[in-house]
Each structure stands twice: as C-alpha cells, then as structure tokens.
C-alpha cells in the first residue's frame, strides 16, 4: 500500500505562492473579509511562512510553504474526542467535517498550527460562488478543516483505475499545489516505493522535516537550501 508524501525543495521554491492559490481554488477555501483577515483568521490549507533567522549581520529570511505535515504520529488525531480526524492506512490525515464538534482541541494540539477553524459560515463574492469545485465539500461554520492532500483526487484516480481494471499509475494522483508549482519545487508520490522520485529525494542528505524532535514523523519533507544558493552567492 502506498504511503503518500511530499518533498519540497527549498532551493527551487521561489516563494511565488502559486501553490497557495491553486489550493484555495481546488479545495473551495473561502475568502475572508479584510477586517477578518486583519484578525489573522484566514484559512490556508497551504501557506507561505516567513521564518526570520538570526540577527544582523547574519540575519536571514527563509520562506517555507507549509501544508499539513500528514504526520505518521499525528498529535491532532490522538486528541480528537470524536474521531473526526484520523489517519488512513495510506497515511493521509483526514478530517470528517460532518462529525467535527468544533472543540478545537486538534488546532491547539498541532505543533505546526496548520489546522483552521470556520469562525463564520463560508462566503464567496457572487460570481465566484459559481466556480466552486464540485468534488470538494464546502465546510459549514464551526468545524475544523485542513489540507487533505487533495484526497478527492486520489478517490477519483482510483475509481478510474478500478473501472479500467488496472493498478493506480504513478503520477496519476497529484495534489493541486504540487501540480501548480512553476519551479517544480514540489514532488509528490509514494514514500514506501524506493524507486519513486519522492522517496529518492526524501533520502537526500539535504532532507529534513519540520520540528523533527517532537516525534510526529511528518510525511512532508523539505530539502534544505544550500546547493543552488551557494552557487548563486559565490
């Protein structure tokens, strides 16, 4: 069985945020009023996080695209009182919107702060409402949501493969963010298959995971900046 994961090469990432936009469109992530955005209540299933590092003169600003880490040991799943978030056999941490009671225990337990709450009913400007993705359910107010690794795409691809009586081909299932990345910084696939690009990159000496010491075992793996940055600065 596949163990879906993602590699994000920070050398290739230009911080253009195409992934953020692609995700918002794909997953019906609602817009927010400016005053709500000011309060920091925007929902991003993937967002670009600026991480300032060090002090002058060694000061550095890093940008990290931050989707759900889909941890193998997810702290959110452990604490959900109603099992509204759980991990599939293929390692996707999913959210059952119709069951969530909105206690926000998972949002406080997640050390990556990538879980979002629907403070109000979702709202789109009038023409935009028409262009919502029919494959993804719209979340009501009062529930928690987050990146599902475009789980609906997996279901669709698998249904197609079953109909055509063949196994799921590599590359057939790709989340919207990975698909949209112009600099091909994001790679997606089966981490358990040693021949996929994603698992080869995951074994690279540049590979690291966020907050690894917490023991959450994320399946989103980053490749540290170094090679290209070094060549461009020298």
């Amino acid at each position, binding site marked *: 069985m596949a163990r879906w994961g993602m590699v994000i090469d920070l050398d290739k990432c230009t911080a253009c945020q195409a992934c953020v936009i692609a995700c918002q469109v794909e997953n019906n992530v609602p817009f927010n009023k400016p005053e*709500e955005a000011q*309060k*920091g*209540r*925007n929902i991003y299933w993937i967002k670009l*996080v*600026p*991480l*300032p590092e060090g002090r002058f003169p060694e000061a550095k600003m890093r940008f*990290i695209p*931050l989707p759900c880490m889909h941890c193998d040991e997810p*702290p959110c*799943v*452990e*604490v*959900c*009182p*109603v*099992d*509204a978030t759980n991990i599939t056999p293929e390692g996707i941490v999913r959210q059952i919107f119709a*069951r*969530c*009671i*909105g*206690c*926000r*225990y998972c*949002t*406080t*337990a997640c*050390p*990556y*702060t990538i879980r*979002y*709450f*629907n*403070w*109000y*009913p979702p709202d789109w400007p009038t023409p935009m409402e028409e262009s919502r993705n029919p494959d993804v359910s719209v979340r*009501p*107010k*009062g*529930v*928690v949501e987050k990146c599902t690794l475009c789980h609906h795409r997996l279901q669709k691809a698998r249904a197609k493969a079953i109909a055509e009586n063949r196994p799921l081909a590599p590359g057939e299932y790709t989340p919207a963010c990975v698909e949209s990345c112009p600099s091909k910084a994001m790679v997606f696939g089966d981490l358990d298959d040693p021949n996929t690009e994603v698992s080869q990159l995951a074994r690279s000496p540049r590979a690291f995971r*966020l*907050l690894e010491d*917490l023991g959450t075992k994320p399946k989103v793996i980053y490749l540290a900046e170094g090679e290209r940055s070094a060549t461009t600065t020298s």
Partner: protein
Amino acid sequence: MPQPLAETDFEPAEVQDEVLFRPIEKTTRRFYITVAILLSFTFLMLIAYITQLRRGLGVTGLTIPVYWGIYITNFVFFIGISHAGTLISAILRICHAEWRRSITRSAEVITVMVILFGAGSVIVDLGRPERALNVILHANFHSPLLWDVCSITVYFTGSMIYLYLPLIPDMALLRDRGRKHQWFYRLLALGWTGTEQQHRRLEKAIAVMAILVIPIAVSVHTVVSWVFAMTVQPMWHSTIFGPYFVVGAIFSGIAALLIAMAIIRSVYHLEEYLKEIHFRLLGQLLLVMALLWFYFTFAEHLTTFYGNSPDEMRILMSKLAGPYAPLFWAMIVCCFIIPVAILGVPRWRTVRGTVAASAFIVVGMWLERFIIVVPSLSQPRLMPSQGVYWPSWVEVFITLGFLSTFILFYVLFTKFFPIVSIWEVREGREKSLEEVHDRVRTYIPLPLKEE
C-alpha cells in the same frame, strides 16, 4: 462524665434550629430583588449565546493561533471551584472533624451547581454544540477530552448522591412540619422515619460515598490538567500539571466556600451556626493551600527557566515580562502575597479577613487558569507573529452570566432545602459530645482521671 446535654440551656426541641427553616418558609423582598438582578445577567448571557449560535464563533475574540480563550479558562476555573464541596466535606467527615456539621451542606451544593457551569463552558466553546453527543457515538478514548467527559460525569453523579444522602433526614423534617410543598418533601424523604436501622444504613452509605468521592474528585482535576499536559505545546507539557491543578482547585474551592458561607451567614442570620471558629479553621486550611500553590507555581516556572528550551522560554518570558506580565504578577499578588499576608496573622483570621483573602484568591485563580491556557497558544513554534487575544463582549457576557446563574441556582437551593444540615447539627448536639469523649479515651493510655 461530661455534662449531660439535656441540662445545658437549650431551647425546647420544637423551636430549636427554627432559624434554619426560616429561609425556606419565609421569602423576603430582598430575595426577589437578588433573583431579579441575577436573572438580568442570565438574560444578557442568553442574548450573547444566541448571537454566537447564529453568527458563529467569529463573534468571540478568538483567532489563529489562540483557539482557546476565556471559555476554556472558565471551564478549568469552575471545575476547580467544584472541589470546594465534595472533597472538603468528605475529608472532614472521614476525619470526624466535628466542626464540619454546619458547613458540609453549603459546600456540597457548590460542587453540584458549579459542575454544571464547568461542563457548560465546554459546550459554549464548541463550534457545533448540536453535535456534542458525538462524544458518545464516536468516542475516541485516546483523547484526554473524553477522559474529562467520563470523569466529570462520574463526579457529577457521585456529588449529587453525596449531596442527596445527608438531605434525606432533613427532607423528612420538612415533610413533618408540613408547611410548604409537603408533597415535594415527602417524595424526597423516601419514607424516612428515623429508625435506628435507617440511621445505620444512611451513615454507612454516607461513609462509603465520602470515601468514593475523594479519588473521583482528585481524578477530575487531574484529567482536566491532562487536556493540556498531554499535548506537546510549550509550558503545557508538564508532569506536575495533575497535582498542580488539584492543589489550585482545592485552593480556589475553599476560597469560594468561605465567601458563600459568609453571605449565607449574614443574609440568613446564621451566626450561631457558622461561627468565627469555622472561618478561622478554614482560613488555616486556606493558608496551607496558598503556600502549597505557591510551591507548585515556583517549582513549575523555575524548572522551565533552567531548562532554557527556546520554545518554552518564549512563553515563560511573555508571562514574566511580556504582554501577559500584568496578569501574571496580578495572579501572584492575588493568590499568594495578599492571602498569606492576611491569613498569616492569626488576629486577622476572622470572618472579614478570611473573606477578603478569599475574594482575592478567587480572582487570582481565575487569572491563573487564563495564564495557563492563553500564553502557550499565543506563540506557536512556526508562526513568527503572535496572536493577540482579547475577549469580546459575547465572551464577557457569557462568563458573567455563568457566574450569576450559578449564584442564582445556589440561592434557589437555599429556598427549598436547609443550607445547614439540621439533623447533623442536632446529632452533634445529642450524640457526638459523648462520642468524642469516648474516642479520646481510646487514644490515651489508661487510667484517665475520672471525676
């Protein structure tokens, strides 16, 4: 031999303890005014909650990353206050502390009433309260929140039984007086006639419950602390949170009990029943708890400070010298400096002194809960910006409404049930003097000097 009790100058039995029946049988105008004031806050709370239900939790001051605010603070606080009753009353009963007789009832009622509001605080905090029963349908026993659901349910049931058992003989007393709502008291008295056998059974049942509720009460606040401690968030993930929360709970509980007792005493003229000595003894207990609370607080923060882990230090510094510093230091002043200054002086351990200390402690312990819940959330590891949390009017009204409705329930209880256990006071008068005398004889090597 002790002086036979019959010879001490008590009033005849029929008019004895008349003052304890008075709140039930006579209702003054002051009572209606009090109820009206309390109800007006309840009404504001309803308006606030309906607003929140209709529009969503966006009407609160909560944001990303501060997902939990004063609702969860209230939850921890109210559950803490509930330790006033059952635990203190059970411990005093088990120790045969004779001075407990007139205070146990008022303590036990606090527990039962306040648990409702503790549990209610969590319901109010839910984004989808109508799905709350999913905790039964889809229970995930890995979640500390579900442990809470279980232990609070058991605690509520246990405390309810523990409140009800000692009420039975009093219900029979009220039934036999036959003045008001006789059918109601007949129902609750369960056919109590006061025979020897009934007394023996009741005493046994109370003794069993008194022992049972102690571990339950300890488990409840331990589990409440584990909601926080079982996550990996900085300054939540602490091994001493269980006992720390239990100590804080008993601490704030005694303070709440002292305030309730002082109000009952002055409103219902129960100076003969709730005497200075009760306040002095509870005041001593409060002083011990204040020192114990400070010990835990000190140990917790010093360990974090020396650990010097960057994630934890950021939170710690935001408490000690950052945006939460005013609240943190107010907490230290309210929970430790003022109470110890007042209670440490024996001369000041009066009704007024203990109540003043208690008022500061109740405020301080609310701040303590806030200081535990919010700062840890405000600076997550992967967010350079910090969340600013300030409760909205909805949250403030709901909090005030919870407090006033709790007081309202308490006030209504005193209108239907005697707030001082009448039969236990009488039993104290009739039996326990000899019992204590006999008990002391068993402690001390014979021969005792007999007159």
